[in-house]
């Protein structure tokens, strides 16, 4: 399960910190910091502040795109958007980090797979306002095709409510990612559990 932080959408002050604290009561997840509105100083400060909590909770902290901030803050990984610095270069430069990448097409997915990355985030599978800028929904069939073709774990993203998680797993996805259902930080552990209950381990 990948949880994307979502402070930028609602500009909720302190949301990411609350989410990070709630992870202490939750099953382990990949917690992806995706705060594009923050400048690098604030982003570094935020990651540096929450990294120990995420570690203690047994979850993995990843930072969107900025592997320098991931390396310097004690995060465990970096998540690259499709239009990032070349993935193979990041892989070589950011030694020790988990490196994942978003893909919104089959071409991008195959490229990420051959760059030897650790995982792929594929979507949007279903319609969701937060992923609408990344194109129309790809659907489950396309997800299945990607999962069959790439050799690395694929996480499905985009409109994936807990009840839709099973369908993604049945298509061959390794896991799912979501942002919106976690905007209520207080109920995060229960939301994670609801997702996990739909996904056979």
């Amino acid at each position: 399960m990948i949880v994307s932080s979502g402070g930028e959408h609602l500009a909720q002050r302190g949301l990411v910190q609350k989410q990070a604290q709630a992870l202490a009561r939750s099953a382990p997840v990949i917690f992806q910091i995706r705060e594009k509105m923050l400048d690098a100083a604030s982003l570094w400060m935020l990651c540096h502040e929450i990294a120990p909590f995420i570690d203690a909770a047994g979850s993995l902290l990843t930072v969107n795109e900025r592997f320098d901030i991931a390396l310097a803050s004690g995060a465990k990984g970096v998540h690259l958007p499709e239009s990032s610095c070349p993935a193979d270069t990041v892989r070589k430069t950011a030694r020790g980090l988990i490196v994942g990448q978003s893909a919104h097409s089959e071409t991008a997915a195959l490229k990420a797979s051959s760059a030897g990355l650790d995982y792929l985030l594929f979507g949007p599978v279903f319609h969701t306002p937060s992923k609408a800028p990344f194109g129309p929904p790809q659907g489950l069939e396309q997800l299945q095709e990607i999962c069959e073709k790439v050799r690395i774990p694929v996480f499905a993203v985009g409109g994936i409510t807990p009840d839709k998680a099973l369908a993604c797993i049945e298509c061959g996805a390794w896991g799912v990612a979501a942002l919106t259902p976690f905007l209520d930080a207080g109920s995060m552990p229960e939301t994670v559990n609801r997702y996990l209950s739909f996904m056979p381990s």
Partner: protein
Amino acid sequence: MSLPRRLLCVITDERSDPVELARMALEGGAGMVQLRRKTASGRQLFEWAVRIQELCREHQALFIVNDRVDIALAMQADGVHLGQQDMPASVARTLLDPEAIIGVSVSCAEEAVKAAADRASYIGVGHIFPTYSKDKPSPPLGTAAIKPIRNVAQLPVIAIGGIELKNAAEVIRAGASGIAVISAVSESDDPAAAARELVRMIRQ
């Protein structure tokens, strides 16, 4: 890596092709190019940076990346330039080669002292004159601010903000090691000639 004296640093603007701008600036004798494009994707920045670094090597000039330490690490730039809203220089120092150039923007003595403690290689002091390149709510520092800021930091000063041909020499006389410009080169009809003139002016 130490900073050459009487240095012209050309910073890329938000409009021009940064590689072409760098090529012309280097032809004109710029000693350092800084890639700065806030709206570009990581991939685009990386591709530009690789090509500008090559051009800089051909001209024995330095190449630094604004803000994006990740890009600088990925393509092994000579260094980075960090604003007050960017990653702290002390943190960047732990990631970059010990010899890498780290410039820090400062606008007062307090920030300059912090930059020195953070092991910056130089401080970018500004804005010296009124400028339209960046939205600056604060008044210009004026050339008289250069020496006191340089003295508290004990670091080379690259002056920035509204520097053009008519005031470049004054900035150097006031104690700056070099000047950084955006529009004085990028907005010129002949950027190479503009850079050449600025270099001549600061080396007088």
